[in-house]
């Protein structure tokens, strides 16, 4: 089982849209896939029409090793299942803090699912916290959607520095350009000449597209539209990610 977290300290960069679409494409390829909505906003759950409600809340979720299984719901798409969000996830930091080895908790929770799923995608809340640290340790890859601006690159450097300072594996950091507006010169230049430091960017990028925005209205992955521009962009990202994960 490979675990991929969609993470960035900044919000509104395309984490959820990417998580939703990559999970969909992964399942379409025949892989047993789980999408875990860890963001109390519950946007991923909303897109998949699953109520953002966990029985017993975040409290029960982190309680025992088998608690994730009870929370899983199937989406409308074959081979794709989900752990929906819950507003109580806003307190997840506190709940983890009260436990032994808090940064290892999420990984422990995922262990019983290893035989059930080929891929797990975690849609993270925008923050840097105990929950984030726990996600870092649970993940095989950290996909970092990055809008091609100077400030976003600065945020990437912060994440990289954090990993370095805490002896975490920086090779798991996989930034890619998201919400790329080809009308803007800065965006075009950055995508054409992506920075190689602190970590190289993936080659695939996701353009800014209204069809991705429309996911909120249509409540389904943009990639479900088959040969749309967004579907092709996410497919390219998925293939590049898969190649990186499988060596």
């Amino acid at each position, binding site marked *: 089982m490979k675990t991929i977290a969609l993470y960035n300290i900044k919000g509104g960069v395309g984490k959820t849209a990417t998580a939703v679409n990559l999970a969909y494409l992964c399942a379409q*390829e*025949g892989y047993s896939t789980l999408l875990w909505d860890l963001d109390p906003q519950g946007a991923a759950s909303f897109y998949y029409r699953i109520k953002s409600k966990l029985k017993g809340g975040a409290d029960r979720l982190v309680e025992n090793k088998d608690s994730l299984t009870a929370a*899983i*719901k199937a989406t*409308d798409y074959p081979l794709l299942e989900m752990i929906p969000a819950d507003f109580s996830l806003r307190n997840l930091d506190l709940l983890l803090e009260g436990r032994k080895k808090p940064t290892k908790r999420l990984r422990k929770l995922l262990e019983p699912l290893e035989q059930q799923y080929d891929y797990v995608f975690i849609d993270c809340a925008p923050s840097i916290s105990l929950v984030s640290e726990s996600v870092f340790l649970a993940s095989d890859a950290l996909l970092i959607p990055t809008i091609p601006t100077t400030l976003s690159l600065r945020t990437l450097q912060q994440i990289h520095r954090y990993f370095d300072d805490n002896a975490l594996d920086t090779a798991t950091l996989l930034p890619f350009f998201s919400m790329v507006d080809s009308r803007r010169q800065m965006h075009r230049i950055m995508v054409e000449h992506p920075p190689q430091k602190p970590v190289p960017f993936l080659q695939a990028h996701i353009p800014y597209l209204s069809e991705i925005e429309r996911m909120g209205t249509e409540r389904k992955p943009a990639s479900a539209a088959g040969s749309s521009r967004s579907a092709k962009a996410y497919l390219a990202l998925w293939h590049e990610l898969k190649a990186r994960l499988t060596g």
Partner: protein
Amino acid sequence: MLTRFDIDPGTPMAILRHQLMSQLACEVVVQRQFPRQLLDTLDWRLYKNGYQLSAEPQGHALLLQLHRLNDDVLISQALCPQRPNFIHDIPSSKLHQLLQPQIEQRRLLTQLSLHVDHSELTVTNHHDKTLARLQLESCRITAPKQVRQAQAHLIFLPLRGYPKQARRIHALLEQQPGLSASHTAALTDYLNTLRIDIHHFDNQASVASSPDQRSDQALKQALLHQLSQMRHHHQPVIDDIDAECLHDYRVAIRRSRTLVKGLPGTLPKSHAQRHLRQLKRLGELTTPVRDIDVILLNLDHYRALLPHDQHPGLAPVEAYLQRERERHHRQLGRQLTSRQHQQWISAYQRFLSQPEHTRTPLPNAKQPIRSQLSQHLWKHYQSILGLGAEISPRSPDEALHTLRKRCKQLRYLIEFGQHLYPTEKIQRIIVLLKKLQDRLGKCQDLHLQITHLGQIEQTLTQQGQPPLATKHALTSLVKQLSAQQQQCRADFLACFEVFASARHRANVKELFNP
């Protein structure tokens, strides 16, 4: 929770659909007709493992889906540009990974074709979230033969995480007129309708029924089973389904030869010798094709052993082998379809089907099978110990080949009578014997490959063909395979030590010569 229901023949699908829509507040999301192929190997490997692989058109491609038979759960799927014949025709995917160890080198055959009238109903909540699916299908078998009467069923697919709704819908379905719970997979129903016996291609030795059964009776039963294996594989070999088919055919021949020779004095000598000669001839007829298959099946492995720039050097070798294979296969096909061969098969069948005489001059015919078999197994085992003890790192390949043949004979004889002995004890012996055979098999295969690759180079040279790249590639390969052969020899010697150990000898003696 049962997920499958048969729809009574007297209940039209449209009426059932209408009833369900009104009772469950569900809607039809899909309604279409299409052909569905159910794919499996000649020996039904997927079905025996509890799976069904189906292929349905989706756009310009085929959607392959692997379902679990007992609960219709979708395990994986993949889009394939065209109908796959072998595993390498399926794009690299989860489905490919799941199928590879099951089907290996076997061809995927269209075992059944169906015309499907399919509708899917979804039960949703107020967010339009699907809570359950109901698939109604009327399937008419169109191949291997047309069946006029369609079989209709309903598959209930509750989505995970909505147990209350699932229970409610299931309760309603159980009470629904026109529906009855089904305890068998649809594919099992189709097989029953067509009276297809999937065990035709089970390549297991038959077993004697009881320890006191007459030896000649037990032997003939086993030989009849092997003959039926040969008959079932006869046409697939001629049609060249896949390399495994020919291999299984040859195994049936070898088992037959071992059984006839392995219990002397049990069958009339002149008949036994006549049929042995024919079996030997049949084995020899199939050898050239099999030898070429072994090399062709190893080509990817050879490429992996060579540096990338030497890969093109193997292309003339592959082309030559394909031509030779075709030639030998045509020859084999002619022999198998000849009147002479058919006459022998009929004569052999008649001989094996003759009832045993109450009074027989044959010294061992009426002996209880277990005691006779045990004697021969013990003798075989002793001879293997003797042959194996003489093998050293410098022994000629022929010595290992002889030992390998003897081990195979022992194994076939054991498998013939394995139910006559305590299961755990006989399995221990079989497991060790298999390990020894594996090592010997690898050594022998490497020896054959090295020999054949050398012969291929000579032949191509005589034909004025091989480019320098091919010579280099073959030289490089032979060198590497020879190194592997040395390692293999060392592995075998270590394995034989365990096989010949005092402890194992005591186990074998306890069973066969107490």
